[in-house]
């Protein structure tokens, strides 16, 4: 490599940097640093003229290293890399000196901040002297996708990708796809959840590129973006496609459990059909509760039941993974607002189910044997820190859902008094019209704040005691039924999901997206996308759109049939490596293995798997493992630039 000729470019970022850092002084300082040929300033380096300035200098002064002192590399490193590439330089011969987030934004004293900025630039220049050109790798990519979760978000993503030409595996852990939306009576005043879902399922049925795998779980995900190896366990259903839905098996089955598809409002047998339009349209045996008595097998005339069926493992090669495993409804503890202590206290999901024509009451609002005269919804159960076990977040959908149900109740039972006890009504956007409509339909709203309502179960009946905020009085409301508007929880098995897919989890327990604002459907790991409530509470429409959006990202990633891999990854110096395998143990991405080359044990890095975290190079006792772009030599030069000392290399 020829003698380094470094150009240093200091950005004002308007007043963001120039307000606290004396940019001129930094430029003068930089000019005198070793190997620096030019040093310049500009008001917005990232703007086109700023970039042009660098490009022209590279050509005019034959520069071969560039230092840009500006903002965080996470923002504009790509911009400047592209710029120097256009000027004919290898794009990795760039070093960013972050004098904004690390300096101007966090300091007030202009003089000291300027000194610090100088030091940051000095370090960057020191490192830049040792920068090496790196090359990106390209690998082939599968145009197939694994969609995890067969709710509406997953179904939507699958449909979108299949239409685009991808082969899609839709993996659902329960015996049917459709998710919770299929169980909701009315998702808006005119639309039945079951109808929407069955129309979506109809499309799935007709689409040969979608392979639906129910009773299935992702148990292992190997490989890397574009080339994932997914291991799927398919739990036995014990019923095959010969099933005609005659239902005789159900009658003879001796096992009875609470029916989760009716949110516990009714009971089902161990062999059951989840709901009328379930897909695949066969009965299923719940392997967790079945006692294998064989009664069903005996009675089935179509030989559709095989109790000897075993779990199968399926290995798939896919290019991308879309995680759409949804949420769990909040689980109120026994006694939370009287939950579990009185038959007339139910959850919002149970009520929604009741209002579905396919429900145990055929869509009639019959609670505790009769139509309630007074029914009250309590909002924020499990959300917004309201109850002891509650989450801090707002569950977003419960206000609109409760109001929607209240309107439905008022339409069908005008003599029933409906109360909604709320903290803040969250009918954001156009849903406000529902809130307006509820007033016209004589739904009564009661606001509470810190003091939460109390449910009294007395021989005379149910009462709610609440401190009404807008009249500042304690009031007692006689009610016949109480609906707890429960929020959303991260799915119960999110830990397993994280372990298998290595997505990460935010403070509230849902999966974290790459950027809350601008990358809401991308996981921080390249190649994994997120849809629906797995990233946090959403309503049905938002989940559907997220399904399409995640599909778009997968299309964009894989449409070329190949994937570019960042070269800033670990590299083994085979001469120095002793094959101690410490790196193998510390690698969080299982990217390192030990290979025997000419009888020597040597670490081997699978480039496509390496995420460039640097753990291995830190752990390597011999210095054989080097992180490209962050080699020991480069980092030492950087640290010695601040702390003094010599660099040998």
């Amino acid at each position: 490599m020829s003698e380094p000729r470094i150009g240093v470019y200091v950005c004002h970022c308007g007043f963001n940097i120039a307000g606290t850092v004396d940019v001129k002084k930094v430029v003068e300082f930089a000019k005198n640093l070793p190997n620096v040929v030019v040093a310049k300033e500009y008001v917005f380096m990232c703007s086109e003229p700023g970039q042009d300035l660098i490009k022209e200098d590279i050509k005019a002064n034959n520069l071969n290293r560039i230092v840009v002192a500006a903002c965080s590399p996470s923002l504009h490193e790509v911009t400047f890399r592209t710029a120097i590439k256009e000027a004919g330089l290898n794009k990795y011969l760039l070093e960013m000196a972050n004098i904004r987030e690390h300096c101007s934004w966090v300091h007030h004293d202009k003089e000291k901040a300027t000194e610090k900025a100088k030091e940051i630039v000095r370090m960057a220049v020191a490192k830049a002297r040792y920068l090496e050109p790196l090359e990106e790798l390209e690998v082939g990519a599968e145009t197939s996708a694994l969609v995890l979760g067969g709710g509406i978000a997953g179904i939507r993503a699958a449909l979108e990708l299949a239409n685009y030409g991808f082969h899609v595996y839709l993996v659902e852990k329960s015996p049917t796809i459709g998710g919770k939306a299929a169980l909701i009576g009315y998702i808006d005043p005119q639309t039945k959840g079951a109808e929407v879902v069955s129309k979506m399922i109809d499309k799935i049925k007709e689409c040969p590129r979608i392979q639906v795998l129910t009773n299935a779980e992702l148990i292992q995900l190997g490989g890397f973006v574009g080339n994932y190896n997914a291991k799927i366990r398919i739990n036995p259903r014990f019923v095959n496609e010969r099933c005609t839905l005659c239902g005789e098996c159900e009658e003879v089955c001796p096992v009875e459990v609470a029916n989760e598809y009716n949110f516990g409002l009714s009971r089902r047998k161990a062999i059951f059909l989840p709901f009328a339009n379930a897909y695949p349209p066969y009965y299923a045996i719940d392997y967790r509760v079945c006692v294998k008595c064989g009664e069903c097998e005996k009675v089935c005339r179509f030989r559709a039941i095989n109790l000897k069926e075993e779990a199968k493992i399926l290995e798939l090669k896919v290019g991308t993974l879309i995680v759409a495993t949804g949420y769990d409804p909040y689980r109120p503890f026994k006694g939370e607002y009287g939950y579990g202590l009185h038959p007339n206290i139910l959850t919002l999901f149970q009520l929604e189910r009741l209002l579905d024509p396919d429900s145990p009451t055929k869509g009639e609002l019959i609670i505790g044997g009769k139509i309630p005269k007074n029914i009250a919804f309590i909002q924020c159960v499990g959300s917004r820190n309201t109850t002891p076990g509650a989450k801090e977040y707002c569950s977003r959908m419960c206000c609109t859902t409760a109001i929607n149900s209240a309107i439905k109740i008022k339409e069908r039972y005008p003599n029933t008094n409906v109360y909604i006890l709320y903290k803040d009504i969250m009918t954001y956007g156009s849903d406000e019209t529902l809130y307006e409509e509820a007033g016209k339909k004589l739904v009564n709203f009661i606001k509470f704040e810190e003091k939460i309502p109390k449910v009294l179960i007395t021989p005379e009946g149910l009462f709610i005691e609440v401190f009404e905020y807008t009249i500042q009085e304690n009031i007692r409301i006689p009610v016949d039924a109480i609906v707890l508007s429960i929020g959303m929880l991260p799915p119960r098995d999110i830990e397993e999901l994280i372990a298998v897919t290595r997505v990460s989890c935010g403070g509230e327990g849902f999966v974290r997206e790459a950027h809350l604002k601008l990358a809401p459907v991308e996981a921080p790991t390249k190649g994994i996308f997120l849809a629906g409530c797995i990233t946090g509470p959403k309503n049905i429409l938002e989940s559907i759109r997220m399904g399409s959006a995640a599909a778009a990202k997968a299309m964009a990633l894989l449409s070329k049939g190949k994937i570019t891999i960042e070269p800033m990854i670990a590299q083994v110096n085979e001469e120095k490596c002793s094959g101690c395998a410490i790196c193998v143990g510390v690698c969080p991405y299982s990217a390192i293995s030990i290979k025997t080359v000419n009888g020597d044990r040597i670490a081997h890095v699978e480039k496509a798997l390496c995420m460039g975290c640097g753990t291995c190079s830190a752990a390597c006792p011999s210095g054989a493992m080097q992180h490209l772009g962050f080699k020991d030599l480069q980092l030492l030069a950087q640290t010695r630039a601040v702390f003094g000392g010599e660099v040998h290399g």
Partner: protein
Amino acid sequence: MNGGSEFISVNPDVNRTVITLGGKSLLECYQCGSCTAVCPLSEALDVSFRRAIRYTQLGVEEKILGDISPWSCNLHGDCTDSCPRGASPSEILAAIRRYQSIKYDWTGIAKWWNNSSLMAKLFVYSALLALSLLIFFGYYWQKILSYASTGKLVVFSELLIPVAVAFFVSLVFLASNGYRAYKFMSKDKKAKIGFIKSLRVIASFFMKLETEAMGVPHKRERILEHALILIGIGLFILLGALYLIYPKFFDYEVISRALIYSASLTLLIGVGSPLIKRLGSSEKTHWYYKRFTHSVDWMSLLTLFPIAVMALLLFIFYDLSMILYAYIAFALLLSFLIPFLLLEFAFGKHTHWLYKVIAYYIGARAGYFRGE
């Protein structure tokens, strides 16, 4: 209530009742407080119309009955103009007042009056009227003829006895209901200032309020109508008092005639103007006349109107020396007065003067007026 518990029980049926009493948009209110904030009263008076509406939405009965804010409403209508939900707080408050009047009345007549249809009310009114007519044109007919033959108008005579009885009966109802209203409204409100000071506070408040309202055309129109009715009735009472105390006054013919005619005309115009506006449906008519079409509102005008007409006719006939006709008008006037007193005056919308006075007095006494 509730065995001394600090929790107030709500009555879930109250809101339906108030809706049928004319507060159609009661539950459309989302409690923003715009009505209180835009009301010209609020600056001087610590009341919350929003809270009154919430009490009613929830059915917190004891709070509703003790609330003076519905009675402090003077129907300026600013709240209805600026309600973000398009609810009509002034109508809701009128309905709450009806609900309160029903509850203040112990006889149950107010309940019937406020809940029955216009036809039913007219029917009962007519029945009472027929009875009165029977008294005056049957029982007293000979008397009237003999008075007429004197050529003079003898106002105070036994003809007045039935009216006096009706008046007395209605006063008994009013007094007892007023006492109940006083009890409801003064509960939990400590007296802070004395009686005379209270009156002064109210007077100065009204002066300021009405002066301000006169600046707004549609408000001025209604204030004038209301004032005409008040002045008309007031003048009649004044004339009656003069006749009793100082009959010689009526010898100053020009002045007394002027007074008499202005009394009759003011009343007639005060009642007739809103009646005509309500009956007509001109585009220009303020929504106030179109919205307040509860049968109780109609009855308050319909029962007063013939009285005003007969009073005017009485003096016209008298001045035309058509003494018999004057007496007939007089008898008719008295006949219309009896059902008016027994129904409208004792239980109808006209009771608002009493409840309003009580509410304002209690408010003033409890220090609801700011800056006093």
